């Protein structure tokens, strides 16, 4: 039994640990968004969910034994100044995949601004209802409820 568990971990979790981490983080965020009563806690769940997606994308771009997707100074000089064809100087496996980085770069900043907007709306909700608990807000909204 122990051997079976160890084999399962070695075969399924160790080579895919990045996906396990993002699934667990994502589910923590989803759980918070579904079940929490407080609007701020829901927003925290949304932020955790977003972070999981960002981790997922960035981990897709990783290549073993590759560097950041920026040409070295020497490589850039050789291609631009000396006119060598780029195929001779660089190889594809040398650089991490730039596309996920680009997508997440914008997603992080846009995520911050939309989170700011969500916080602003919750501040207004707190201003008009005096609470951020969902059920209390629904009580007040119901016709015949107090207030």
């Amino acid at each position, binding site marked *: 039994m122990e051997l079976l568990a160890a084999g399962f971990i070695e075969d*399924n979790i160790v*080579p*895919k*640990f*990045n*996906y*396990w981490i993002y*699934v*667990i983080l*994502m*589910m923590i965020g*989803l*759980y918070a968004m*579904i*079940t929490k009563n407080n609007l701020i806690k829901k927003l925290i769940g949304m932020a955790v969910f977003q972070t999981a997606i960002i981790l997922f994308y960035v*981990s*897709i*771009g*990783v*290549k*073993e034994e*590759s560097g*950041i*997707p*920026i*040409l*070295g*100074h020497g*490589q*850039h000089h050789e*291609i*631009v100044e000396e006119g060598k064809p*780029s*195929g001779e100087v*660089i190889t*594809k*496996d040398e*650089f991490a*995949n*730039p*596309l*996920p*980085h*680009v997508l997440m*770069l*914008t997603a*992080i*900043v*846009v995520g*911050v*601004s*939309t989170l*700011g*907007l969500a*916080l*602003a*709306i919750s*501040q*207004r909700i707190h*201003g008009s209802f005096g609470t951020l608990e969902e059920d209390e807000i629904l009580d007040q909204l119901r016709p015949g409820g107090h207030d």
Partner: protein
Amino acid sequence: MKFFGFIAVVVVGTLLLVATGDFPGWGNPHSPASEGQVSGFYIEQTVNVTKVPNMVTAVLADFRGYDTMFETVVIFIAGIGIIAVLRTFGDTAGKASDYPEPDEGSDIIVRSTCHLMVPLIQLFALYVVAHGHHSPGGGFQGGVMLGASYILLALACGLPVAKRRMGERKAIVLAATGIIIYAGWGVACLFFGGNFLDYASLDPVLPGDKEMARSHSMLVVEIGVAFTVTAIMFAIYSNLATRGRLEKGL
């Protein structure tokens, strides 16, 4: 509710974990995302068609220029939305900005450190924007840093001091200017016979050849992005921290 939520989360999580079995392993250079045509083209041809060593910036500002432009618009709309939702005009709104006093409660060590740090942060932020197509950096990163320097000023010396340097009207104008720079640069390409955001067509007015025109244009649109991000980051902070009154905040 908690129970049903937990069931739903467990079911979704299990399905996702089962699906990871078909995913490529960590750091596999032959994963579908890395083997695809697009990513290979970006890595091998970026330097040939734009002369920019930083592929991330090249993809961001040139190949995916439309995407980045509308991401900037999303940030702008979020900032305007925050101002529209929160901003209130109380009795003291005008008075606070006329004679800003240093915050009585703030410590002299904090204020002195902040006065030393803010210029350095801003200088570094400008470097990150200006050097973004040669080293890690770009408009979003530099813009967030610039915005953070104003937020630091507001935290250490009080919001009125920061507001004197980045007032509300100035912030909104700056944010709009950033988008106008970006979109205007795209429209300028139309006048030189190219498509929208087709920077290579600008090479009659920019120094260097067609490839250098794309490189220079990336700097221009990154500056536009940095303007918008700076202004909106500070607007988000100042409105959230004062509940839209823009007086003495946190």
